[in-house]
C-alpha cells in the first residue's frame, strides 16, 4: 500500500463505508482480499460502533485485517499485544514515579521560601492548599496503548492482539473500555474518548473468553479460504507471480489441508511459500522444489516427515 492510495482514500472515506461491496473494493485497494462475511462484519462494526472480535487459527489474516482497515481509513493504528501478566499499568497508564519524586524534591526546596512569611501554622496550611497540586495530574501520566487510543481525537484503529493470552482480570478490566469507550482513573476521574476508536480484538482460542466480553463484541470467525479466494490473495500479495504457478501452489496447499496435520498451513504460509518460490526462480512445482521448501509450509517435524513421501501423489492430484 502506498502513501498516495492512503491519502486518496482519506479524502473520501465515506464512500468506502457506504456499502459492503464498496468496503470489499476498498480493502482490496490496500491489499486485503476480504470475503463477504469479513467485510459485512467490519461494516457492521463501523456503523454500530462496536468492537469486533476476530477468531481463527494462526496466520489467516486476523491482525492483517486491522492493519489494512487502519490503512484504508487513513487512521493511526495503536497496537497492544496481550500476554500473561499484562495489567493496567502496562495497558492503560502509569504514573511517572521518577518525575513525581523529583517534583516533591523541588516542592520541598521551594516550600521554605514560599511559606516563610506566613504568620502562623494555619496561615501556612492555607497557603499550602492554595498551591496547585500537580502530584497526580496529566503531565505526570504516562499513557499506554489503551489511553493513547482514547485520546486520539480524530479516531484511530485499536488492535488488541491475542486477548486470549491475557488474564481473566484484565479481560474484565477491558469491559469498561469496550462498552463505553472510557476509563476511570481514581486520581483524575473518567477519561472518555471524543471519537470512539475502532477496536479489533484477536483470539487464537487458547482459552475461552468470558461471555461478558463476547457480548460486547461483534464476532468474526475467519476460516481457511477456499481455492479461488486464496489464489486472489496470493496474486495480490505476491504481484510478480505467474498465474499458473499460483494455481498449482494453491492447489497443493489446499490438498495439504485435507491431511491430518498438527498445524495446517494457513494463508500466511502460502504467501511465504509463494515468495520463496519466486526467489528460487521456480516457475512450476516439482517434487524436488517442494521437498526443499516444505519447511516454509509446515512448522512441525512430524508433519514434514508425514508429507514428504506423499509429495508426488499430492502434486498429481487435480487442483480443487
Amino acid at each position, binding site marked *: 500500500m502506498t502513501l498516495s492510495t492512503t491519502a486518496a482514500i482519506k479524502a473520501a472515506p465515506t464512500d468506502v463505508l457506504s456499502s459492503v461491496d464498496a468496503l470489499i473494493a476498498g480493502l482490496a485497494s490496500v491489499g486485503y482480499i476480504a470475503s*463477504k*462475511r469479513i467485510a459485512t462484519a467490519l461494516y*457492521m462494526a463501523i456503523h*454500530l460502533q462496536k468492537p469486533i472480535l476476530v*477468531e481463527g487459527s494462526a496466520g489467516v489474516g486476523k491482525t492483517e485485517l486491522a492493519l489494512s482497515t487502519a490503512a484504508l481509513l487513513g487512521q493511526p493504528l495503536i497496537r497492544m499485544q496481550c500476554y*500473561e501478566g499484562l495489567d493496567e499499568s502496562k495497558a492503560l497508564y502509569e504514573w511517572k*514515579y521518577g518525575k513525581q*519524586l523529583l517534583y516533591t524534591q523541588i516542592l520541598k526546596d521551594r516550600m521554605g521560601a514560599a511559606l516563610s512569611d506566613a504568620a502562623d501554622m494555619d496561615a501556612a496550611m492555607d497557603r499550602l492548599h492554595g498551591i496547585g497540586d500537580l502530584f497526580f495530574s496529566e503531565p505526570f501520566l504516562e499513557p499506554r496503548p489503551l489511553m493513547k487510543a482514547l485520546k486520539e481525537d480524530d479516531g484511530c484503529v485499536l488492535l488488541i492482539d491475542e486477548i486470549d493470552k491475557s488474564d481473566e482480570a484484565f479481560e474484565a478490566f477491558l469491559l469498561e473500555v469496550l462498552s463505553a469507550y472510557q476509563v476511570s482513573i481514581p486520581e483524575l476521574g473518567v477519561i472518555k474518548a471524543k471519537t470512539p476508536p475502532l477496536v479489533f480484538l484477536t483470539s487464537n482460542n487458547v482459552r475461552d473468553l468470558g461471555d461478558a466480553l463476547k457480548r460486547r463484541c461483534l*464476532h468474526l*470467525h475467519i476460516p481457511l479460504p477456499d481455492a479461488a479466494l486464496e489464489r486472489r490473495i496470493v496474486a495480490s500479495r505476491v504481484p510478480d507471480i505467474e498465474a499458473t504457478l499460483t494455481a498449482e501452489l494453491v492447489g497443493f496447499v489446499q490438498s495439504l489441508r485435507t491431511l491430518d496435520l498438527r498445524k495446517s498451513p494457513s494463508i500466511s504460509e502460502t504467501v511465504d511459500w509463494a515468495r520463496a518460490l519466486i526467489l528460487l526462480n521456480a516457475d512450476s512445482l516439482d517434487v524436488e522444489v517442494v521437498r526443499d521448501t516444505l519447511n516454509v509450509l509446515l512448522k512441525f517435524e512430524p508433519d514434514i516427515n508425514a508429507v514428504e513421501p506423499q509429495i508426488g501423489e499430492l502434486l498429481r492430484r487435480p487442483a480443487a
Partner: protein
Amino acid sequence: MQGALEDFFRALRAADVKVSPVEAIDAHLTVAKVGFSDRELFKDALCATLAKTADEVVRFDATFDTFFARDQVSFTPPPPSGQDGGDPMDGLPPEAAESDLARMLLEGDAASIAQAMEEAAERAQVSQIRLSTQRSRLTRRLLEEMGLAQIEAIINAARKLEGGGDAADRLEAGKRKLAEEAQRYVARQHELYASGSGKMLREEMLARKALNAEGGIDPVDQAMMQALVKKMAKRLADRYSRRRNRAKRGHMDIRRTLRKSMPYGGMPFEVIWKTEKIDKPSIVCICDVSKSVAAAAQFLLTFLYSLNEVVDRMEAYAFSGRLISVNNILDDEHVDGAIFEVLKRIGFQQTDYGKSLEDFCENHLDHVDRHTTVIFLGDGRSNYADPRLDLMATIQKRARSVIWLNPEPESYWSQGDSVMYRYERFCHVAKTCNTLGQLERIIEDVLRTYVPH
C-alpha cells in the same frame, strides 16, 4: 418484522446460541442498518451480531436456513371439468363465496395461503411447541384457525347440490393438500424451537443418572457423557491456567526498592511493588479399576482422561491388584482407546488397596509434595486385605490435600469389606460421587477450597 426477529431469537436460543437482550437490540439495529432485501447481507450481518463462537456460527447458519426457508408451495388445483377459464367457484353452494380460503385453494394462490398460514400459526401459537407429541394437536389447531370447519361445511353442502360433486372433489383435494402443508409447517416449527430441548432433557437425565447403576451408562449416551466430562475438565483447567503471580497493587516492597535505589544515591526512583507468588499446584490422581467398581470404571477413567488433557502437571495411576502409571497411555491414545488399554492392562482384577498403596509409595511417592493434591477415585473395598493405613498416613503427611471420591453412597461405607471409614480419617474430603451432576458440584466445591490459592 420485529415479531419475526423475536421468533428467530427464540429459535436460536433453542439451538443453543445464546442471545442476550443486548444482542437482540444489536440485531434490531443491524436490521435497521442493512435492511432485509439482500438475503446474504442480512444473514452475515445478523451472524456477526449474534453468533459468538465458531460453533455458534455453524448452528446459526443452520437455524437461519431453516427459519427463513419458505419453500414455494404449489397448490395446483385440478381444473374444473367444465369449460376452460370458467370461475373455479362454479358448482359450489353460495356460502362458498364468502370463504377466502376456499377461493385460495381452488385458485391455487400459494402466496396467499402461505400468508394465511403464518397468521393462523400466530393465533394458534404454533411456535410454542415443545414436544413432538404436540405436533398433531397443533396441526389440527392451525387448520381450525385457518377455517377448516367452513371448508368442510362447504364440501358437504356442495355434495348435496346437484352437479356439485366435481367442485366438492376439487375442494377436497385442496383441503388434503392444505393439511399436508400444515403438517410440514408444524414439523418445521418443532425442529426450530424444540429439537434442542430434547437434547437438554437427555443431558439433564444423564447428569443425574447413577453411574454405577445396573448396566452403567447406555452406550448411546457414552459420547454425550464424554462431552459433558470434557466440559467439566475444561472448566477446571481454566481455573488452573490462571496467573500464578499476582501483583499486589499499593503495597511497596521496601527491601527491593531500597536495593534498586543504590545506583541513584539512595533516591528511590524505581518503586517495586510487592507481588504475591501463587504456586502451581499439581495433581496426583489414583483410580481404582477393579471388579467392584466395574460399572463406574468407565466413568472414572473418562474423568481421568479429560483431567489429563487439560491439567499440565498431572500424574495418573490406575490399580486393581497392583498399581501402574497410566500417563503414557492417556497421552498417546484417543479417549476410547485409552480406557480400553488401561482396562486391558490392569482392569477388573481382585482389588488390593494395601498392595497398590505399597506400589505407589515405593515407586511414585516423589511426585507427592506439599503442592500436590491427591485424588483417589475408588470404592474403598479392600477384599479384607490389610488396607495399609500407615501408607495412607504417609501420603496425607506429604500432600497438600487428599480427596477421595467414592462411587458408593455413604451408608455403604462401613459395610462388608469396605474400609472407607478408616481411609476417610486421612482425607481432607471424602465424598460420594456417582453422577455427573455430583462430580461437577464436587469439582466446584472441593477444588475451590482445597486447591491452594
